[in-house]
C-alpha cells in the first residue's frame, strides 16, 4: 500500500517545495480566504432575519448555505482544472518530456500531479469551515462527517473524469478546451454554489441534476448542515457513483487517444 503512495508523495513534496519557495503568494492565499468569507457574511446580513423558503431544506441560513458552496466548489474547480493545468504547465515549463520518458505510466502521473492541489484545497476548506464555525457562528453540531467525506471522495472521482477529458483537449489541441468552458459555466450557473437550485423552474432544475456538482453540493449541505443520515443521502451518493463509473474509464480512454494523437503529431511539448 505504502509503495503505491510513493509517487503521489513525490509529487506532493515537489509541489510543496515549489509553492513554499514563493513565500508571499503562499501567505496571501490565506488572506484571500478570509476576505471571501467576509464578503458572503455581510451579504447574508442583507437578508437579516428574513425567512427564505428556498433555503428551508438547508436550515434556512444563507451564510451557512453559501459557506458550504464556496468551500466545496474549490474541490470542483480542482477536479476539473488541476489535471489540465498540470499538463499545460508542464508543457510551458518544459518538464513534460522529462516526465513522459520516466518509467511511470501516464494515469499515475495525472493522478499524482493533482494530489497536492486536492490537499491544498482540503486545507482551504478546513480553514473556511473553522472560520465559519468559530468566527461567524455557523452551526454544524449535528453534521454527518463520514457521509460528507464519502460524498467528497465521490465528487472528486466523478468530477475528475471531466478534468481528465479537459486535459485531453489540452494535450491534443493545446488551447480552446470547449468542455471546460461549458462545464465551468454550467456548473457555476446550475450547480447551486451561491443559490439553491430550488429557485429554478422545473425544466432548468432537471438540467441541473445532469451535473455532478448539483448532487455533490446538495448532499454535502444536507450532511453538514442538517445532519442527514447516510441512508437519506443514498440518492446523492448513487448519482455520484454513476457519474464516476461512466466518466472515469471513459476519460482515461479519451486521454490515451489524445496522448497518441500528440505523439503522432509531434506536439507533445508544444503549447
Amino acid at each position, binding site marked *: 500500500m505504502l509503495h503505491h503512495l510513493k509517487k503521489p508523495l513525490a509529487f506532493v513534496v515537489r509541489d510543496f*517545495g515549489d509553492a513554499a519557495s514563493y513565500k508571499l503568494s503562499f501567505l496571501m492565499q490565506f488572506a484571500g480566504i478570509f476576505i471571501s468569507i467576509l464578503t458572503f457574511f455581510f451579504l447574508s446580513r442583507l437578508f437579516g432575519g428574513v425567512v427564505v423558503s428556498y433555503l428551508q431544506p438547508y436550515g434556512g441560513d444563507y451564510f451557512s448555505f453559501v459557506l458550504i458552496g464556496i468551500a466545496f466548489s474549490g474541490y470542483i474547480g480542482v477536479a476539473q482544472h488541476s489535471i489540465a493545468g498540470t499538463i499545460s504547465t508542464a508543457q510551458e515549463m518544459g518538464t513534460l*518530456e522529462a516526465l513522459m520518458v*520516466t518509467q*511511470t505510466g501516464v494515469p499515475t502521473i495525472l493522478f499524482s500531479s493533482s494530489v497536492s492541489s486536492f490537499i491544498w484545497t482540503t486545507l482551504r476548506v478546513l480553514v473556511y469551515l473553522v472560520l465559519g464555525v468559530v468566527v461567524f457562528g455557523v452551526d454544524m453540531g449535528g453534521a454527518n462527517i463520514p457521509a460528507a467525506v464519502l460524498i467528497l471522495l465521490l465528487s472528486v472521482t466523478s468530477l475528475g473524469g471531466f478534468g481528465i477529458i479537459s486535459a485531453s483537449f489540452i494535450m491534443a489541441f493545446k488551447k480552446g478546451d470547449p468542455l471546460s468552458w461549458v462545464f465551468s459555466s454550467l456548473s457555476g450557473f446550475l450547480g447551486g454554489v451561491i443559490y439553491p437550485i430550488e429557485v429554478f423552474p422545473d425544466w432548468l432544475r432537471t438540467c441541473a441534476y445532469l451535473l455532478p456538482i448539483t448532487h455533490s453540493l446538495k448532499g454535502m449541505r444536507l450532511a453538514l448542515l442538517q445532519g442527514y443520515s447516510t441512508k437519506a443521502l443514498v440518492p446523492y451518493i448513487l448519482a455520484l457513483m454513476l457519474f464516476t463509473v461512466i466518466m472515469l474509464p471513459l476519460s482515461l480512454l479519451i486521454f490515451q487517444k489524445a496522448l497518441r494523437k500528440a505523439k503522432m*503529431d509531434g506536439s507533445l511539448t508544444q503549447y
Partner: protein
Amino acid sequence: MSYIVETFDLTKRYPQIKRYHELLIHPFRKREITALEKVNIRVKSGQVFGLLGPNGAGKTTLIKTLCTLLLPNEGTALVNGYDIVKEDKEVKRSIGYVVNDERSFYWRLTGRQNLGFFAMLNNLSSPLANRRIEEVLRLVGLEADGDKRVKDYSTGMKQRLAIGRGMLSDPQVLFMDEPTRSLDPTIARSLREFIRANIVEGQGKTVFLSTHNLGEAEELCDRIAIIDKGKIKACGTLEEMQALFDGKGRYLIELEKPTHGLVETLRGVFSFELRETEPGRRVTIVVSTDDRWTVPRFIESIVTHGGKVVGCSPGGRTLEEIFSRVTSLRDRKEGLRGGEA
C-alpha cells in the same frame, strides 16, 4: 550480432497545420511533411554513436521516436531488444534521455530534490535512490552543488544535471540531443571528455547523440550517421566513410611559395586539388590516386620545376568534406547508405 539500437524502415511524418481556406476547400485532405524516411541504422553496445545533420534534418525526431516520445508512421525500432511501439515500458526501463532543455527541471528545487523526484518516477526505492543520487552527482561533478537551487546553476551545470538524471536508473543506452548546443567551447570540450571517459569507457554505456557540430562528431563518436532531410545519407566510422567516398589513396603535398607557372605546369600533367594553407606562403596539393608511383613522380616534377616541398602525408577526406558532399547530394541514389553502424 545483436545491437542495442536497431531501426527498420523507420518513417515519421508530421501533419502540417492547414490554412483557413484549406480547411474550407479540402477539409479531409492531409498535408504532411516527412521528417524521417525509411531510416535503417544499427548501433553496437558500448559505443558513442553520433547522428550528424543540419538543422531540421530529423535528428531530434529520430531520438524522440527511439525514446517513445513520438510514434512512427511506418517501420519500427528495437532499443535493447524491445520494440519502441509495442514494448514502450521496457524501452523506458532501458534508456536515459538527456533532455536538451534547461527548463526541464524544477528551477526552484535543488539539484538533489530534482533527482530525488525523478528517481521515484523511475521506480527506484528510497535507499537505492539516495545512493544513485550521490553516485550520479559525483559522476557529473555536482556533489558540492547538489543542495543549490537549479535556478542558480549555470547552463553547463544544468546540462550535467540532465546527464545525471538520465543516468539515475543505470540505463543501457543514453540518448542525448545536441548535448553541447548551448555550452561555451571550453565547457563543451570538458563535457565531451566526460561522456567518453566516464559514461562510455567508465560505465560501459552506449551513448546515442545528435549534433550538428562536425568537430564534436569527429572527436567523440565511434560511428556516425549523416542524416539530411530525414534520410540516412551515410553511416559508419569516419574511415569507412572516407573509403566509401574516395575509393582511392589520398595524399597531401605541402609546397612553399609556389609560382603561378609551377601550378599551371603541374595542372598540365596531373589531376589535383589546390588549397591555400597559409595565404601567400604555403599551399597544399591534394592528390587522389591508386597508383603508388604517382606521388613520387608528382614530387619529382615539383622539384624539377623549382618548387619546394615542405611536407607530404596521407590524408583522408575530413568529416566536413564528407558532410558537405553528402548533404549536397540530396536525393541522388548513389548507394551511400552504409551497412551496420
